[in-house]
């Protein structure tokens, strides 16, 4: 009990220190008086009496300290004292303080920001309950796009039936195009994007609606009343966050559709499944209606039973795969999804988390290493600054040591200083990270998953504290030990300039600068290689000309009693649209396609040259585009042979255009004369013959930096388009024509939604956005590293010039010229820089190998990047040394010699 009581008393005593000190003071005074009185009574003289009293009392300060220690919290007292002292010294040297805090803020800020990104994308689970149970089920990646990554509704059913390790399996329709919803609330129809999902979608993911309910099986059957679930964002922007929205019906795509629920803010379909895409509403997919005959259309997402490992799920899926048929009615299509003899295909569950962010792991690790290097550079810089200060403060500490301060006490004082500095750096760094993270979270156009969910959370705060403390220890320890370990007498005698102690410091500082330069070199080389890769990606021939062209979604209604009437209606509609738009002044060409490159895609089966036996192993089938005459020209794609014409009608010969690679493949297979595919006939199976009329350039359809798959173009007058994107090639930048194009479309179809007129360049930018962002971040960090290294070099050289003012003065007095003095200083700088660059280059070669997978068209040993970095670092080092060199040459020998 008394122990507790004592602890409480000590805390109270610590809190009321001044009062207790005064009381002790009074008590001791009384003690001395009482002792003096007694000594007087014993017959001593007044002076003798008092002297004897003081001698008997013993060391006054010792007694006081002992009492304070017994009474209060001495350690805390010392800490407070150190803190006060630290604040005083830092305020006295504002230049140092500002630079130190700034360096730390940049280093810590970059680290916290990148940690938040890494945490969100790699470390934190996906924003679903028990998300480690969720898997993405698909074959390994192929060249035939989304059609090869999806399943037919029959296959989905069979998988659900035959798999044993899953609680349930769901999926969504993978071919919804942006702007597929047209909301009509009077006035111009509003374009929005909806995704069709299998009714159990939200149940499997574990998403609870913020309002209303999620889908039930009866919402997704033939003839069910149309229902929709709104995303939080659309509910806010389009429906003014109406709290009573559930149960209201709106005209969507011409049907009264009832809102049954609103999703929580935390659910962002695009962030997880379709990075960079905005999804406004979710609608149920009628599995047993028309989609049944659409072929591969649904993705599969499963939730494993508790305790099931991913390996077990994979085994289970492989066992279920042979039961899956493309169409149950077509027996020979059964087993089409199983692992093929050549190792392609298969039904493979992977953790959803890996599917979503797995590809980014390497980039993020590189980013993390980059900011780690920044932090190291910052630490080295700080160490250097503190060493410079230490040199001027060594006397102060020697004095304190002489007055009885222990070595531990001095190290504690120095660590307190480091902690205060890094604490201040962390506060500013955190603000910096907050700004950066907020900016990143608003990069809506960047195709990175989960980007919108970025925020500074508890983990990031914890990380901040951790690195702040680690940094303080890292940069504070070396100068601390150096100072505290210094020889007292030497330091007291040492006048600073030119003495042995100064030299020793100099060597340490040089090592630090070399480290810094080497680290900056690695960062710069990395950034240089990524920049070169990015330039290479930008200069890739995409197979189409994104400049001066734009796309807009065209609404059309081709419904008619018969297929023939519908096809005719379609032909008339688009012939009109293209003719009308082509008449707009400034329009060079116009054409329509149902899918655009770098967007969504699909493939049909493989066709082979007529009369040639198909190979045993089916290659990935070509992506299919259903286009109008003029589309190829509007895209700026080069063509051999002829384009489609409006005369390629339903009753005329079926025609097709293919890309150059596919033409070569066919020509080799069928031994066509001169390898020429034009005029040859393909057999799509079942006597479905098409004649190749044109060969076009390979188009980058899925990404800008990968291999291209095959492409096949069908005329929209002979095949059924899956939507319509109008491409307009213009003479001026396309933005200027946005309103006149939309006006023309409205003229022909008053129901045309106010769809976005998107320059093709935005498609390319979107595809390049992760690489661009990544390159930008690494480059910024490299620039930061370069800046810090420059400050480091400048600091060391400048300090050594100051230290050697006297020596330089003597030299000049002895006849050294300005040039000689300058050359000496710059020479010293370049020597440091060159050693750093040499070491950095070696380290860079190793680092470059590690990031080779992230490069495009650039060797890890790319000479341009290396030479550029060496020249840049050399130049910056020169500049950093030149300023102190000039100062050195301006030293007046007389003043310098007198000054000491």
């Amino acid at each position, binding site marked *: 009990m*008394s122990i507790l*009581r*004592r602890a409480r*008393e*000590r805390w109270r*005593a610590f809190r009321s220190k001044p009062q207790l000190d005064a*009381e*002790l003071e*009074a*008590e*001791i005074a*009384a*003690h001395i*008086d*009482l*002792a003096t*009185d*007694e000594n007087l009574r014993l017959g001593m003289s007044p002076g003798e009496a008092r002297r004897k009293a003081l001698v*008997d*009392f*013993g*060391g*006054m300060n*010792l*007694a*006081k300290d*002992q*009492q304070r*220690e*017994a*009474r209060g919290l001495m350690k805390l007292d010392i800490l407070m004292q150190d803190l006060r002292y630290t604040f005083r010294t830092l305020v006295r040297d504002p230049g140092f303080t500002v630079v130190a805090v700034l360096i730390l803020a940049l280093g810590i800020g970059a680290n916290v920001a990148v940690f938040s990104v890494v945490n969100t994308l790699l470390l934190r689970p996906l924003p679903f309950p028990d998300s480690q149970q969720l898997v993405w089920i698909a074959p390994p990646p192929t060249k035939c796009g989304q059609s090869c990554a999806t399943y037919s509704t029959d296959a989905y059913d069979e998988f659900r039936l035959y798999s044993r390790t899953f609680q349930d399996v769901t999926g969504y329709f993978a071919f919804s195009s942006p702007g597929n919803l047209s909301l009509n609330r009077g006035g111009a129809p509003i374009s929005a994007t909806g995704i069709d999902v299998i009714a159990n979608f939200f149940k499997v993911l574990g998403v609870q609606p913020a309002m209303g309910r999620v889908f039930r099986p009866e919402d997704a059957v033939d003839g069910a009343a149309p229902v929709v679930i709104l995303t939080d964002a659309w509910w806010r922007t389009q429906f003014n966050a109406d709290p009573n929205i559930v149960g209201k019906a709106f005209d969507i795509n011409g049907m009264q559709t009832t809102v049954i629920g609103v999703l929580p803010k935390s659910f962002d379909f695009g962030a997880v499944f379709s990075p960079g895409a905005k999804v406004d509403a979710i609608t149920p997919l009628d599995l047993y209606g028309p989609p049944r005959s659409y072929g591969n259309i649904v993705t599969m997402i499963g939730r494993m039973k508790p305790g099931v490992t991913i390996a077990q799920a994979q085994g289970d899926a492989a066992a279920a795969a042979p039961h899956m048929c493309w169409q149950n009615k077509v027996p020979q299509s059964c087993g089409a999804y199983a692992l093929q003899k050549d190792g392609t295909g298969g039904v493979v569950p992977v953790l959803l988390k890996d599917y979503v962010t797995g590809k980014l792991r390497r980039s993020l690790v590189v980013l993390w290493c980059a900011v780690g290097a920044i932090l190291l550079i910052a630490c080295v810089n700080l160490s250097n600054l503190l060493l410079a200060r230490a040199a001027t403060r060594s006397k102060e500490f020697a004095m304190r040591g002489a007055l009885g301060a222990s070595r531990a006490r001095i190290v504690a004082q120095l660590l307190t200083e480091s902690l205060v500095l890094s604490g201040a750096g962390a506060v500013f760094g955190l603000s910096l990270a907050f700004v950066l993270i907020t900016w990143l979270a608003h990069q809506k156009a960047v195709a990175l998953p989960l980007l919108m969910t970025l925020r500074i959370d508890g983990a990031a705060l914890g990380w901040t504290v951790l690195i702040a403390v680690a940094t303080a220890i890292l940069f504070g320890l070396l100068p601390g030990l150096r100072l505290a370990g210094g020889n007292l007498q030497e330091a007291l005698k040492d006048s600073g300039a030119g003495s042995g102690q100064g030299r020793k410091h100099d060597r340490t500082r040089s090592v630090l600068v070399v480290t810094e330069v080497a680290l900056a070199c690695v960062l710069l080389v990395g950034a240089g290689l990524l920049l070169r890769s990015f330039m290479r990606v930008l200069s890739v021939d995409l197979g189409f000309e994104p400049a001066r062209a734009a796309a807009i979604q065209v609404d059309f209604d081709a419904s008619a009693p018969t297929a023939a009437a519908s096809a005719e209606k379609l032909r008339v509609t688009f012939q009109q649209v293209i003719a009308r738009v082509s008449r707009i002044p400034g329009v060079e060409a116009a054409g329509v396609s149902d899918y655009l490159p770098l967007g969504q895609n699909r493939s049909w089966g493989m066709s082979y040259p007529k009369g040639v036996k198909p190979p045993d192993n089916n290659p990935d089938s070509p992506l299919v585009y259903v286009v109008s005459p003029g589309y190829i020209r509007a895209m700026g794609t080069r063509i051999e042979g002829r384009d489609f014409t409006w005369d390629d009608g339903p009753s005329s010969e079926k025609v097709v255009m293919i890309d150059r690679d596919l033409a070569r493949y066919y020509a080799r297979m069928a031994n066509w004369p001169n390898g020429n595919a034009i005029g040859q006939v393909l057999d799509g199976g079942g006597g479905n013959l098409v004649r190749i009329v044109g060969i076009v350039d390979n188009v980058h359809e899925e990404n800008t930096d990968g291999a291209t798959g095959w492409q096949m173009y069908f005329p929209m007058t002979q095949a059924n388009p899956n939507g319509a994107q109008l491409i307009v090639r213009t003479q001026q930048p396309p933005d200027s024509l946005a309103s006149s194009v939309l006006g023309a479309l409205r003229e022909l179809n008053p129901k045309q939604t106010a769809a976005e007129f998107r320059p093709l360049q935005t498609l390319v930018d979107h595809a390049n956005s992760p690489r661009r962002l990544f390159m930008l971040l690494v480059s910024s960090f490299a620039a930061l590293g370069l800046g810090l290294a420059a400050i480091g070099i400048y600091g060391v050289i400048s300090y050594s010039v100051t230290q050697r003012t006297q020596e330089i003065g003597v030299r000049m007095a002895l006849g050294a010229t300005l040039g000689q003095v300058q050359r000496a200083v710059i020479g010293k700088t370049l020597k440091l820089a060159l050693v750093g660059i040499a070491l950095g280059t070696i380290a860079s070669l190793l680092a470059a190998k590690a990031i080779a997978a992230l490069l495009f068209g650039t060797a890890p040993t790319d000479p341009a990047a290396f030479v550029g970095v060496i020249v840049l670092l050399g130049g910056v080092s020169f500049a950093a040394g030149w300023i102190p060199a000039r100062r050195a040459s301006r030293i007046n020998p007389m003043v310098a010699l007198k000054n000491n």
Partner: protein
Amino acid sequence: MPSEKLDLLQGTLDVMVLKTLVAMGPMHGYGIARRIEQVSGHQVLLNQGTIYASLVRVEQHGWIVSSWGTSENNRKAKFYAINEAGRRQLAKETAYWERLAGVMDKVMAMRPSEAEGEPA
């Protein structure tokens, strides 16, 4: 006067303070220090000043209470008095010391043959 002073075990001084206060009634720091000096024959207190750390420690334990008062020769001084908890503590400490002293006595009285024990 002896040439060397006795090293005090941790807490020993605290017990002396308690015992002195029981013996003398309320007393100021100087009085307690003097008393311990006299009784111990100047063998334990290195300096009178050391008494104050002990006093504050004992007071924080709640074994003594202090108040400002006036000495017989009219000086203002802080007086310490032992309370019930202090007396209990002193009783415990006294018992402890007696046990320890008994054990020490026995150990010190050991003769060589006894220390070696019987051969097996």
